[in-house]
């Protein structure tokens, strides 16, 4: 649907986006995730042809987009965009939604009918004559989505559509996007800094870090096999350990760290320097009483150094010679009676550790 190659965008001498190569497939929900200021908005603006790249190319449905403004307009008219802060014009909701059709010269009867059906789609039936500026943030954002969808675009671009909304309004928007993608087969490209939202909505995601696409892949790829430390940290992996493969028996390897050793699943041969990525929710905590048997290959005794409350979860940092982070429910924390300074066992299955031969690590060691 959209093929981006070698994209570079500079603001003055500063590179905002660099070396972006990406393909968006027809009918998918693609999320761009990355920290604030990483270049997500810039990339969406380039895709919507609002700005021109410094160099590189964007093909829309095989068509080059570097041409004259008139050609770009006709391509832009096949897309819709929703911005982070919905800017509604100071008129009625119906007029706001009608703009796209008016600009394309549709006749009034057709406009009225499309506006009604699109407002129904976003759940704002009956809002036609309300003044748009009097709506709540969530309603305004739905007007913005209706406004973009009224022309039945092939691609819908959204820049942090729920960043300024409360959880209930956000959920309404997310459900709406899933429905649009399912029922209308609209290709959706969504930028968000909220990983969990990315996870809920996306078929595929791209992680943008400092103006570069650090990784593109499925949810599983990115959450369990992150391509490098930066991505790993961003997707919530706190524990990144470096070690050397000691032995490898048919894929079950032992990796030695400075003060500990781990059994992991990897094809890496002995002698290889690797990074171990351990997701905090893969770590379980138990109290050392010697009675429990477990299938987890890695059991490390350590002392709790920190407990951080995260809603219904608690992030526990355990010093097992090397710090390991576990995410457990507040309830099991209570049942285990965890406290800072307590001695516990942290268990991780060998298959739950993502092993990556990290060329960058060689120079560190």
């Amino acid at each position: 649907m959209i093929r981006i190659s070698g994209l570079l965008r500079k603001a003055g001498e500063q590179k905002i986006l660099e070396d972006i190569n990406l393909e968006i497939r027809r009918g998918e929900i693609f999320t761009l995730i990355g920290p604030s200021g990483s270049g997500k908005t810039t990339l969406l603006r380039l895709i919507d042809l609002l700005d021109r790249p410094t160099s590189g190319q964007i093909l829309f449905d095989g068509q080059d987009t570097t041409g004259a403004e008139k050609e770009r307009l006709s391509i832009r008219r096949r897309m819709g965009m929703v911005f982070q802060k919905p800017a509604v014009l100071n008129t009625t909701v119906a007029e706001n939604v009608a703009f796209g059709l008016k600009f394309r010269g549709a006749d009034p009867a057709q406009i009225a009918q499309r506006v009604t059906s699109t407002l129904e789609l976003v759940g704002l039936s009956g809002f036609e004559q309300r003044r748009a500026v009097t709506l709540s943030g969530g309603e305004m954002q739905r007007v913005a989505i209706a406004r973009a969808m009224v022309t039945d675009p092939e691609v819908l671009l959204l820049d942090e559509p729920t960043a300024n909304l409360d959880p209930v309004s956000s959920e309404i928007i997310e459900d709406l996007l899933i429905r649009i993608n399912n029922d209308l087969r609209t290709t959706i490209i969504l930028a968000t800094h909220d990983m969990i939202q990315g996870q809920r909505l996306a078929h595929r995601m791209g992680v943008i870090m400092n103006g570069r696409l650090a990784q593109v892949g499925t949810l599983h790829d990115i959450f369990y096999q992150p391509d490098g430390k930066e991505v790993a940290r961003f997707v919530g992996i706190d524990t990144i350990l470096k070690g050397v493969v000691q032995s490898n028996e048919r894929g079950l390897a032992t990796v030695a760290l400075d003060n500990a050793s781990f059994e992991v699943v990897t094809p890496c041969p002995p002698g290889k320097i690797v990074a171990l990525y351990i997701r905090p929710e893969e770590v379980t905590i138990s109290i050392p009483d010697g009675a429990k048997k477990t299938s987890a290959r890695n059991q490390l005794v350590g002392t709790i150094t920190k407990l951080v409350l995260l809603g219904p979860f608690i992030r526990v940092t355990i010093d097992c010679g090397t710090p390991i982070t576990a995410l457990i429910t507040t309830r099991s924390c209570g049942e285990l009676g965890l406290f800072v300074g307590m001695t516990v066992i942290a268990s991780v299955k060998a298959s739950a550790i993502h092993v990556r031969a990290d060329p960058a690590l060689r120079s560190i060691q």
Partner: protein
Amino acid sequence: MDEIVTGITQAFNLIVTLNPEVLHIAALSVYISLAATILAACISIPLGGLIHFREFHGKQTLKVIIQTLYSVPTVVVGLLLYLLLSRSGPLGFFGLLFTPEGMILGQMVLIIPITTGLVISALSGVDRNISDTLVSLGATEFQSIVQIVKEARLAILSAVILAFGRAISEVGVAMMIGGNIAGQTRVLTTAIALQTGMGDFGFSIALGIILLAIALVIVVAMNLITSGLSAEYQQVMGGPRS
């Protein structure tokens, strides 16, 4: 003291009896200034739009020059146009000197900087996201400019009203280009200047009251518009819904 009291009495007489000369002068004043304001708006709105929407070298300097011209002395504009329009001047063949049309031209020159400058500020006041939104909705450049001007309509309208106030109250251009010819180019301000000089205070006071009444109408109109603006602003901030 006597002069003031008799002057005021005489003034009310002139107004209440609808003195034809007073009415003619007032009507001519309104006609000239209104025409100048409308024509200036027709030039300033597209011109201000052009300056606001286009990027070019020296844009900032141009804005500073426009703002400086807000307070250009009316007699300087009068002098400049006199030199241009006089029979021997480069535009003398139009025969505009000492005509109402010449005065309209003069007042236009006087207020175009104000309307243009305030149109630019009005357009800058429109949320930047609006223009991105319009472009993303498939607007051509022209379509998006029209929408943004519409969005700034209230601020633009108050700029135009302010300009009318400056036009109707100025005396330099009216005197120098109009020449204060009775029945032809005599307007409120020039008539007041002349009658006061001749000691006819009643006539001057009557015209002064009319001028103030016009100013009052302008102020009331401005207030209505700005209260409209602030009501809409309140609604944006989550105030009472319509």
